[in-house]
């Protein structure tokens, strides 16, 4: 029992931070929407980190999975509106979102994961952009006109419920996704998958020689990460944002944000995405209020300084310093 606790001790700081965020948002006036944004960034980082952190592979087209999840939910809502399924539609939407992002990740994983380093990163960009232009070029799902479905959502859930969903419950769901992603991360890290992937990250060829089924574990981590992205898209970009326009859901900038969040916190750490998400989200928010129009000019050099000062990320840096102390077991 103690050993199990010890093994998973590192999850507690993460849960504490999420709980604090949740309570702050709930109790301080005007903070809920900010907390929702912070939670989104944390969840994005947490989900992205499952694959990037453990394997070291940079999936630059990661946003495609978020986008496919968004489409999964949006397509379900628009096609099931009027069938009287009510709340079941949302569940069906989640299943579709998982199916869309899961299938895409399976296809991409089976094919692109044979590539390494920059080649892999660029192949995933190709997937993301190709998918966007396929949707626009063939007028699939409304093409570039997108889907706007507030009305359908209102029909399904009723106006009050759908409004509560967009302004509150979707954010709670984002929180749940973030927590689930964090738990998945630590379970993976503490299991055979984690050890195999660590071996892979250090030296893929050596890991292969030692008889580790590299491909299977890679695809597993890749698909897990992609499915969380799909859930996140279905929640934060469909339920909270009842429209889909292809250029917005396939915007590569979100992948870059995910990388920033993971990097700022520390890739491959459990607490990293939380720390990164908070630094990134709060920094941007404060600057946009204090210096509207100039925040990027301040923010950009600031990030570069942080990267130079903490090449392993903030959590990575702290771990290097305190990892051997009694606190160490809580920092992962």
């Amino acid at each position: 029992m103690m050993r199990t606790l010890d093994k998973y001790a590192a999850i507690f700081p993460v849960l504490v931070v999420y709980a604090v965020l949740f309570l702050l948002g709930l109790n301080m006036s005007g903070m809920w929407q900010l907390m929702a944004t912070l939670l989104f960034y944390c969840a994005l980082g947490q989900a992205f980190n499952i694959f990037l952190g453990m394997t070291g592979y940079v999936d630059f087209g990661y946003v495609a999975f978020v986008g496919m999840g968004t489409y999964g939910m949006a397509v379900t809502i628009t096609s099931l509106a009027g069938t009287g399924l009510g709340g079941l539609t949302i569940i069906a939407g989640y299943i579709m979102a998982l199916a869309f992002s899961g299938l895409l990740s399976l296809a991409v994983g089976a094919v692109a994961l044979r590539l390494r380093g920059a080649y892999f990163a660029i192949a995933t960009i190709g997937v993301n952009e190709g998918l966007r232009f396929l949707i626009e070029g063939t007028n699939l799902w409304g093409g570039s006109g997108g889907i706007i479905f507030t009305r359908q959502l209102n029909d399904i859930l009723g106006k009050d419920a759908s409004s509560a969903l967009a302004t509150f419950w979707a954010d709670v769901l984002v929180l749940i996704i973030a927590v689930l992603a964090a738990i998945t991360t630590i379970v993976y890290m503490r299991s055979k998958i984690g050890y195999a992937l660590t071996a892979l990250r250090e030296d893929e060829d050596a890991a292969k020689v030692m008889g580790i089924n590299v491909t299977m574990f890679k695809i597993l981590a890749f698909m897990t990460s992609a499915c969380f992205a799909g859930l996140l898209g279905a929640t934060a970009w469909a339920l909270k944002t009842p429209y889909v326009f292809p250029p917005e859901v396939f915007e590569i900038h979100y992948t870059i944000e995910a990388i920033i969040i993971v990097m700022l916190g520390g890739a491959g750490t459990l607490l990293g995405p939380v720390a990164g998400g908070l630094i990134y989200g709060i920094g941007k928010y404060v600057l946009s209020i204090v210096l509207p129009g100039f925040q990027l000019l301040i923010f950009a050099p600031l990030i570069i300084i942080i990267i130079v000062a903490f090449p392993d990320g903030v959590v990575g840096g702290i771990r290097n310093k305190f990892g051997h102390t009694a606190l160490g077991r809580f920092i992962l």
Partner: protein
Amino acid sequence: MMKHVAERCLAALLAGLCLLLFAPGTGLAQSSIVIGHPACLSGKYAKAGEQAVGGIKACVQWVNQEYGGISIDGEKHKLEYKVYDSESKKESVTSLIGRLITVDKVDVVFSAYSSGLTLRGAPITESHNMLYMDHGGANNKIFEQGFDYVVQTIGPATSYHKGTLDMIKQIAPEDKRVALAYEDSEFARMVMEGAENYAEELGFNVVFKRTYPSGVNDLTPLLNAMKAADPDFVLGGGHYEDGQLFCSQMADMDFNVKALSLIASATLPAFYEALGTNAEGVMGPSHWEMGVTFSEESAKEKGLPWIGPSQEEFISLFKENTDKNMKPDYHAAEAGAQVLAYALGVEKAGSTDSDKVRKALGDLEFMSFYGGWDVNENGMQVGHTMVNIQWQDSKRALVWPESAQTSKPVYPMPTFQEKDQGAVAVPE
């Protein structure tokens, strides 16, 4: 050593940022009425965003100084403007609107820019029963979603090219062949849909209809195909850079049509600066342009109440409130007119309560330097008509509707070869 200093500085900075985060909103005086705006001052909509902020500041200043404030029950209230930068990003839009409503306690929220960002904010404002005024989201579908508090000042996208088609039907009824080529974006496609339907209604023959992807840097394949369809005139566009590209490559190919009308880009001074005489005779629909002739007299003729600065006053107020090199375009005017609409709405309602003001805005009809303003029961703008400009001798002339004309349209426009030799479009 350096690293330690850097670490400490960062820690101090982060701590400072956190303190700021929880600092209470600026205590605004009770008697003032506050407009909140998650503007797009950076990111992809920065250009329109800067314009909108300038226009709003100009009209807020006018309301406070010239108009003397907004009167509710005989008491005058000053307008205040609270602006943050949403970086043209949806995540920031919601968190900033959340702050504006609950911390800064604004009385009305103006939308960011674009249909997407407007839609992103709507659930938040709706759930707070907060009036949400839209000066930058033109998608008609916004007003089919059943929002109660969204009120539009910018006109709907489907109406952009209607005036142009009306004009050509009247001045050249024999020219039936129209080509449509728009950017593949939600906004431009909606314009195309409106143009196509209206063209068919008026009996035009749509001989070519294609889109091009956003961010395109060579339109020749599309223009080659369009040229083969031999249109009399061309309607198209989408954004800024593609519109400039459109005209410049038509010139490169010496592809001449009798009229070319481009949305968004063609109406801006930068269009002529970038293209020089190649821009001569090119037209564009616009919500507002410097030189429109809406005035107190024209309001009287139509029997509408008039409010706001005259056009000259607006332009000088705009310059006072922005960088001196900036000239107001329609993004500024529509955002400014929205301030005036809100001021009238509050006076009419006798309260800043969103429900009452929303109702008052529903009944409101007025005219300002921006033109008419009237919304239907869904909040969609129906009272504002667009104007069509044409570049004539390096100046923007208003050629349509006839009531706003400052010059007759030049049709057909000079060919690119003629323009290359210095020909300008001047009406006979």
